[in-house]
């Protein structure tokens, strides 16, 4: 291998900057022991990189060093064991001047350790605050989501209960022997498939209608129920809001047949639109 060409290929720089692939790194490390000039090239690039960065240095905020020394205070080796205090220590005369030497150094050391501990505690406390704040925010968000999920679930349950109630009412009407059931079927061949059912309570004369299979009413139109009394159609109510289930209509004292026609929204006093379904009271 031409080691000079290899050195000049840029592989040395990728290696030093941590950009070499695993294979490149393995190859270089394998060549290294036999080629001192390769090692020299690496060291030369490391040195010029270091010198370049030193020239480009940016002064960090001064607080960083203080933080760092405080953070690592417990990890530094103690320089020397503190001297033992024994009973034979001569009584030091009481003066206003602090005793020079050890006492001052130890006292400063003590204050420094205390300060470091306080700073460390403060940093720890701030970190915990941030952590708990984040945790609380997250919990709040989760709770909000659950509440809104719960609300929409409740709304769906309410809607289902209303439908169940309507269906129950329908079943009760069908099962009641005093209620007449009138099946309304398509009025003409083109309208085949349309159907509705009228329930007429023979005691109270209340009329109920169930939209079994009516073509959905187009916009601006509405189905209207008619009771045919002695050949004259009498308005028995609008079915606009009765898309499904059983709906209570007007009270009808007497009728021979029922019919449903498609009228303008709001209804007409006499039928003007197409009659969709009709059925005789048997």
């Amino acid at each position, binding site marked *: 291998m031409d080691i000079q060409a290899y050195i*000049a*290929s*840029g*592989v040395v*720089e*990728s290696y*030093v*900057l*941590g*950009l070499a*692939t695993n294979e490149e790194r393995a190859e270089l490390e394998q060549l290294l022991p036999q080629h001192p000039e390769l090692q020299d090239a*690496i*060291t030369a*690039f*490391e*040195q*010029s*990189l*270091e*010198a*370049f*960065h*030193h*020239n*480009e*240095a*940016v*002064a*960090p*905020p001064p*607080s*960083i*060093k203080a*933080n*760092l*020394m405080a*953070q*690592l205070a417990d*990890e*530094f*080796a103690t*320089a020397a064991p503190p001297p033992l205090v024994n009973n034979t220590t001569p009584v030091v005369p009481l003066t206003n001047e602090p005793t020079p030497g050890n006492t001052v150094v130890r006292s400063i050391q003590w204050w420094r350790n205390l300060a470091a501990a306080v700073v460390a505690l403060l940093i720890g406390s701030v970190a915990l605050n941030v952590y708990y704040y984040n945790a609380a925010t997250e919990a709040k968000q989760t709770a909000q989501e659950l509440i809104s999920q719960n609300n929409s679930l409740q709304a769906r349950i309410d809607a289902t209960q209303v439908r169940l109630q309507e269906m129950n009412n329908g079943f009760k009407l069908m099962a009641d022997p005093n209620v007449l059931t009138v099946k309304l079927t398509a009025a003409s061949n083109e309208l085949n498939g349309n159907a509705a059912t009228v329930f007429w309570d023979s005691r109270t004369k209340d009329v109920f209608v169930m939209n079994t299979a009516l073509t959905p009413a187009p916009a601006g139109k509405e189905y209207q129920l008619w009771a045919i009394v002695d050949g004259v159609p009498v308005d028995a109510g609008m079915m606009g809001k009765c898309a499904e289930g059983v709906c209570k209509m007007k009270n009808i004292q007497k009728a021979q047949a029922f019919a449903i026609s498609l009228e303008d929204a709001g209804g007409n006093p006499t039928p003007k639109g197409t009659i969709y379904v009709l059925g005789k009271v048997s």
Partner: protein
Amino acid sequence: MQQHPTQKYTEAELVTLLQQRNQSAFSYLYDNYAGAIYAVVCSIVPDNTLASDVLQEVFVKIWRQIATYDSTKGRLYTWMLNIARNASIDTLRSKGFQNSQQNREWNEAVYEDISSTQVNAEVIGLRKLVHTLKPELKTVVELAYFHGYTQEDIAAMLEIPLGTVKTRLRTALIKLRTIIKP
């Protein structure tokens, strides 16, 4: 600007003292290298406050991992440089940073006000030199060195063959070496 360290310790002495957990050796290390390392961090992390946090984290890592430093594998500075670059890229990729960038972009869009803590990372150190290279070389070094993508990632991102990525990266690095050579 910080000057080249005045020779108080040799590198070997410094490493030995650091491995013995010597406080003044650590203080010396910081005084002599923090400026260079901070410039490296700032060239990757474009937020001064965050860059300061990363610098502190880097020196904690240096202190705690000094036992794993092997002088036969390279110089102390190179080792520290790689720790700094990895920590900076990790920060760049962290969720918190990405969120803060999103907020920043939003704020900028609304107020057109770039906070004073933002620095233009592209004018610092090695990155400044990289930006003098031809665009196709610059892109590859940017992605590899300042964003930490592997050569395979870059080939996929730029939709060019891996061999081309390798050639461009090496060409760029050779140019950079000639520029920084004292």
